[in-house]
C-alpha cells in the first residue's frame, strides 16, 4: 500500500529536478525546488501513515511541517535574491550569472 505513494513522491521529486536542471528562468527553477519539496512531503506522510513496522505515528507529519517551514524560509531568501539579481542585470536568465566561472 505504501508503494504508490512513494512512487508518486519520487515522480514529483524527479520532475522538480528535471525542471530545475532544464528551465532557464530563475524563478521557475526555484519553483521546481518547491515541487521537489512536495514530493518529499508526500513521501514523509506516506511513511508516517504506513510504517514498515509498528503502528502508524505522526512523526512523518511533524517532519512535513518542519519541512514546510524550511521551504518557506528558502523561498523567501530565494525570491529576495532573484529580485536582487533582476535589478542587478535586468534578466532572469540563469546563464547570465556566471561570475564564479574559472577563467
Amino acid at each position, binding site marked *: 500500500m*505504501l*508503494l*504508490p*505513494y*512513494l*512512487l*508518486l513522491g519520487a*515522480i*514529483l*521529486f*524527479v*520532475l*522538480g*529536478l*528535471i525542471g530545475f*536542471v*532544464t*528551465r*532557464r*528562468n530563475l524563478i521557475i527553477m*526555484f*519553483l*521546481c525546488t*518547491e*515541487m521537489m519539496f512536495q514530493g518529499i*512531503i*508526500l513521501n514523509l*506522510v506516506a511513511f508516517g*501513515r*504506513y510504517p*514498515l*513496522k509498528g*503502528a*502508524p*505515528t*505522526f*512523526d512523518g*507529519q*511533524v517532519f*512535513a*511541517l518542519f519541512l*514546510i*517551514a*524550511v*521551504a*518557506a524560509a*528558502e*523561498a*523567501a*531568501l530565494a525570491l*529576495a535574491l*532573484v*529580485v*536582487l539579481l533582476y535589478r*542587478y542585470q*535586468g534578466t*532572469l*536568465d*540563469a*546563464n547570465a550569472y556566471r561570475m564564479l566561472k574559472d577563467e
Partner: protein
Amino acid sequence: MPTLLIAILTLGAVGLFLAMPGGRADTRRVGWVVLAAAGAVLLALLLRLVPGADPRGLFAGFALVAVFAALRVITHGKPVYSALYFILLIFAVTGLLVLLEATFLSMALVIIYAGAILVTYVFVIMLAQQSRPAPYDVKSREPVWGCLAGFLLLILLARQIELFLVPAQRTPLPAPIAEAPGTIEAVGVPLLTEYVVAIQIIGLLLLAALVGAIAIARRRPTTRAESEGDE
C-alpha cells in the same frame, strides 16, 4: 514488475522531452499525447497495487492531477501559468494527504504553500514580467541531458523503493489509526513533547530567513552598468 515500470518511465521521459518548451508546437503536442499514455498505464499499474480497502478511485484521480500539474509546471512557456499549475499541484497533493489521513497537514499545506509561498512567487513573477515572453523562458536548456539524468534517477529510485518494500510487503498492513486520524491535536502533542527543541530551532531558522530576506532586499544594488563604470 521492474521491467514494466522502467518501460513506462522511459516512455514518460521521451514524452516529457518532446513536450519541453522550445520545440515546435506539434512536437510538443505529440509529447503530451505520449505523456498521457504513459500516465494512464502508470496509473493502472498503481491502482492494481493498491488493495481494495482504500478509496482507489480518489487516489487515482489525485495522482493523475498531480502528475499532470507537475508536467505542466515544467513545460509551460509562461511563468505565470507555471505558478498557477503549481497551485493545482498543491491541491492534488492535499487530496492525497487527506487520503493518508493527514488532515491537519493538508490544510497547513494549502494555507502556507498555496497561500503564502506561491503568492510571493506570483508577486515576483509579476515584478519581473517581460512584455513578450523572455527568450530564456521559451528555450529550455539541454533538455536531453536533464530528462535523461532525471529519469535515470527515477528508475533507480523506483528500483530502490521496490527493493526496500519487498520485505515489507509480507507484513500485514497496519490497522488505520484508531481514534481521530491526523487531527491537529494528534500532530500537536508530539510537536510539543518530542520535538520541542526542533520547534525552537525552526523558529530561529525562520527568524534568520526573515532577517536575511530583509537584508538582501534593503541593499540597493548598483546595476552592472554602474558597477562596471566605476571599477
